[in-house]
């Protein structure tokens, strides 16, 4: 039984020691640093990983989880060990701090008094008068002295910023809070992305891990846009989002970068914006034979009547065309290089004719049979449905993290800028001279040089106060 207690006791001692804490701190630091030197997997493309490391090296790195250090089991274990050591160290040292509140050391003894670094004593006429003078001076200095009575002996005790004794525990608790928040987020949180065209809605998002996640609501995008500065650089990205539950609109918000939509604990951040490959409208400059160029706007597949009776309609649209050997191919769905397949019918000809307009190759084309010329003046005239890219995140643990940060701020202010001070004043009879001596002493747990000055001033005040009645006695 005793041996078993010994092991737990010893284990606790080791965990609670500063050496363990610092060692763990160093190990965490080294682990973090290693993760910045070795390429990490989720962020780096697999092909880049293969280019940077030889296959054998990469195999070993992967096996040791060095390519995903921050989510590796041993890293999490390290952080957990650090948390445990903080807890043990706090438990170990807390009773001593608590004793400061529960049993303050109010009555001093001779040995304590002689050992204090900041102290002063001087001759006084009358014990109670001396103590009263000390009390007055202390009150003047902003302290609140208490009278301590024991065996008919009266002494004074004053204390300030007692709470600062707990500042260390506050700071460490806040650290644990932040760690806890991080762990909760690592387990229950997720991050993903979703792209919505204007008018489109979805109830699923794609997570960073690749899988899809179903949302407890439907999100619809009613509009998206971009505003630019005078020099063309982006000023604002915005999206109009609507949240629907069971068909009812429960939330509507226009979001911009830095101002997300929050619902059901899930946040949608304005991340990207672009023009999708769906054509909304396009403005052409059309010249009929014998006529002058007129602006014609086409939307959808409906034909438009021209001045001489011909009709023009869009038969096809490729947002990103590649022209190779006279053939037009679709390269992607991004609006990079629009190409229009136009159908022109003319009253002169019976059948219609088709032609392709690829503005980057040739901005003006002419239909051979009808003689209609169609041109595009600028790419701003090509409007496609905008899409918005939204970052999605669910971080249930973030409240613990923010609470931890605030608590840490409080703790640090307490730790660095609040000084725990204790003052004692005792009047006793000096064995040698037989006269009364007033002794005052103080202890401050930090910033001693500054407090030395303050204490010297207090001592001076008390000395003056004490000397006065003595002078009065002699003069009287």
């Amino acid at each position: 039984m005793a041996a078993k207690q010994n092991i737990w006791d010893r284990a606790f001692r080791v965990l609670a020691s500063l050496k363990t804490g610092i060692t763990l701190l160093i190990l965490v630091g080294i682990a973090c640093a290693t993760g910045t030197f070795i390429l990490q997997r989720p962020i780096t493309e697999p092909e880049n990983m293969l280019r940077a490391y030889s296959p054998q090296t990469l195999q070993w790195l992967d096996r040791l989880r060095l390519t995903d250090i921050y989510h590796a089991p041993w890293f999490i274990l390290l952080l957990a060990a650090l948390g445990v050591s903080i807890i043990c160290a706090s438990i170990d040292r807390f009773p001593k701090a608590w004793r400061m509140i529960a049993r303050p050391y109010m009555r001093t003894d001779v040995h304590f008094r002689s050992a204090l670094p900041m102290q002063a004593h001087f001759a006084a006429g009358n014990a109670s008068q001396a103590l009263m003078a000390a009390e007055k001076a202390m009150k003047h200095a902003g302290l609140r002295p208490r009278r301590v009575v024991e065996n008919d002996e009266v002494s004074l005790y004053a204390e300030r910023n007692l709470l600062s004794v707990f500042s260390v525990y506050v700071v460490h608790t806040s650290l644990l809070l932040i760690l806890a928040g991080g762990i909760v987020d690592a387990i229950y949180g997720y991050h993903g992305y979703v792209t919505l065209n204007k008018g489109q809605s979805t109830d699923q998002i794609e997570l960073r891990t690749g899988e899809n996640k179903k949302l407890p609501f439907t999100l619809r995008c009613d509009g998206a846009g971009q505003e630019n500065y005078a020099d063309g650089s982006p000023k604002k990205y915005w999206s109009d989002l609507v949240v629907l539950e069971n068909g009812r609109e429960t939330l509507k918000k226009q979001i911009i970068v830095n101002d997300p939509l929050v619902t059901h604990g899930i946040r949608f951040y304005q991340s990207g914006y672009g023009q999708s490959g769906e054509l909304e409208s396009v403005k052409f400059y059309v010249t009929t034979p014998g006529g002058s160029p007129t602006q014609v706007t086409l939307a959808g597949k409906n034909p438009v009547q021209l001045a001489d009776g011909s009709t023009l309609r869009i038969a096809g649209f490729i947002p990103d065309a590649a022209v190779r050997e006279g053939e037009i191919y679709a390269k992607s769905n991004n609006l990079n290089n629009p190409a229009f397949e136009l159908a022109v019918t003319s009253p002169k000809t019976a059948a219609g004719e088709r032609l392709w307009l690829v503005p980057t190759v040739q901005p003006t084309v002419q239909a051979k049979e009808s003689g209609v010329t169609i041109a595009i003046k600028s790419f701003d005239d090509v409007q496609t449905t905008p899409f918005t890219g939204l970052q999605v995140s669910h971080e249930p643990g973030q409240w613990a993290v923010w609470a931890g940060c605030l608590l840490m701020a409080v703790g640090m202010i307490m730790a660095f800028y609040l000084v725990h001070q204790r003052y004692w004043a005792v009047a006793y009879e000096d064995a040698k001279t037989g006269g009364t001596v007033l002794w005052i002493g103080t202890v401050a747990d930090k910033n001693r040089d500054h407090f030395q000055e303050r204490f010297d001033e207090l001592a001076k005040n008390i000395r003056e106060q004490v000397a006065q009645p003595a002078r009065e006695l002699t003069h009287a």
Partner: protein
Amino acid sequence: MARTATAPIEAPAATTPSGNALLVTVILGTVFLLFMAFLNVVKPADGAPAGNLFNEDNLLYVALILYSSAAALYIGFGVTGVDKYVRFASYATMIGFAANTLAAGHRWYSAGHPPFASIYEMLLSFVWTLAALTLFAERKYGVKIIGTITMPLAVTGVILMQLLSSAVRPLVPALQSTWLHIHVSLAMLAYAACALSFALAMMFLIKDKMKTETFLAFTSAMTAAIYFGVLTRFERWGGLNVIAWDFQNKEEVFLQRGVRLFVTIPDLGWLFALVLLAAAAPLAFYGWAKWRKNDSSLVIANRALFISIALQIVALGAFVLRARNSAYPALDADGQLVTTSLSASPFILTGVLSGVFASLLYLMMYWRRPDLERLLPSAEVLDRVTYKTIGIAFPLLTAMIAAGAYWANRTWGSYWSWDPKETWAAITWLVYAGYLHMRVTRGWRGRRAAYFAILGFAVVMFTFFGVTYLLPGLHAYA
């Protein structure tokens, strides 16, 4: 063999001159440069119409001149031991600070946002904070000599600014956040406080009678480390691989997202390798002297340092000349030939300048140690003030990290993504936490605390420069 094995290296005794020569030279030089700058604005040489006198560039140039005068006077004091240099250096710092404040204010006004949006603006703020802290330390702590370290740093900063794009770019959406401003202000204050604690820790070591040859070893090790870092880009048989710098737009050239273009400067690699050897030589001789307990090697070590300084200046000149005038063809993302004109990659320039300044500071200590010690407060005071400074730096660091996390969460939905910059900021925080633990709980004072403070600042420097310039280069694909 008159020296005993334990006698430290003695600096050659010299009488202190009246000091007017350097003072007059510096004052005249300052006035001359200011007058020429004034003329250049009011009556430009190329016939262009007169410019605005009080615009940001001119104010910054005034600040540069005055900071350089201050740095020269501080270092001049170090070399000759004349007290009045320190006083005039202080005046120069004050005037330079005023000009710097006006420049920053002008920038703020014309940009419409506080100067935190680009690296140019960050440097502007950093240099301003450095000057402010120097003046503050002089007044509050009475450490008048702190300018010897902070002023050369400020000069380096302003020179760097000349190489960077100063275009006032309107803030892109991600940067339009109050939390960004809070985060960056905290970062500036925190890093400046760390720099101050570093300077104080160095001064403590001087006052604590750390042997001059130990300083030699440190300086030599630091310079060798800088050149080693630069030479990790040594490739292709004598060429130096440098991140390509587009001189027109004053920015890096990217092949694709996150992948920078590297250009090889031929021959410069060999020169830098030679300088690395010269920089490491004093350290080698120091090691030999310690091993063999042989003092004559220390004399050789000091001589080796002179050679090292000379070669470093040659390297600096060669790099600047090569980088300014030459255009190096490189292939861009589409396989097209792109002529990139290298305007000294800021990382290498900063490294080389720091090496030169550190070596000069060592020389100053070698020649004028007793005078320096006389001008410094007691070792105990310096130790305590270092701790107080870190007591200011640490909460600022914490607040900076927290504000950054909150901003990241609002903008990208994730408060911590183990990004290298974030991770190294956390490591910096851990190091300073270690310092506080060892000091408060273990009672570490004096030497060990000073070493810890210096280590902390080294990590700060890596977070600031290394992450941006060294880490991406680790896995270059160009």
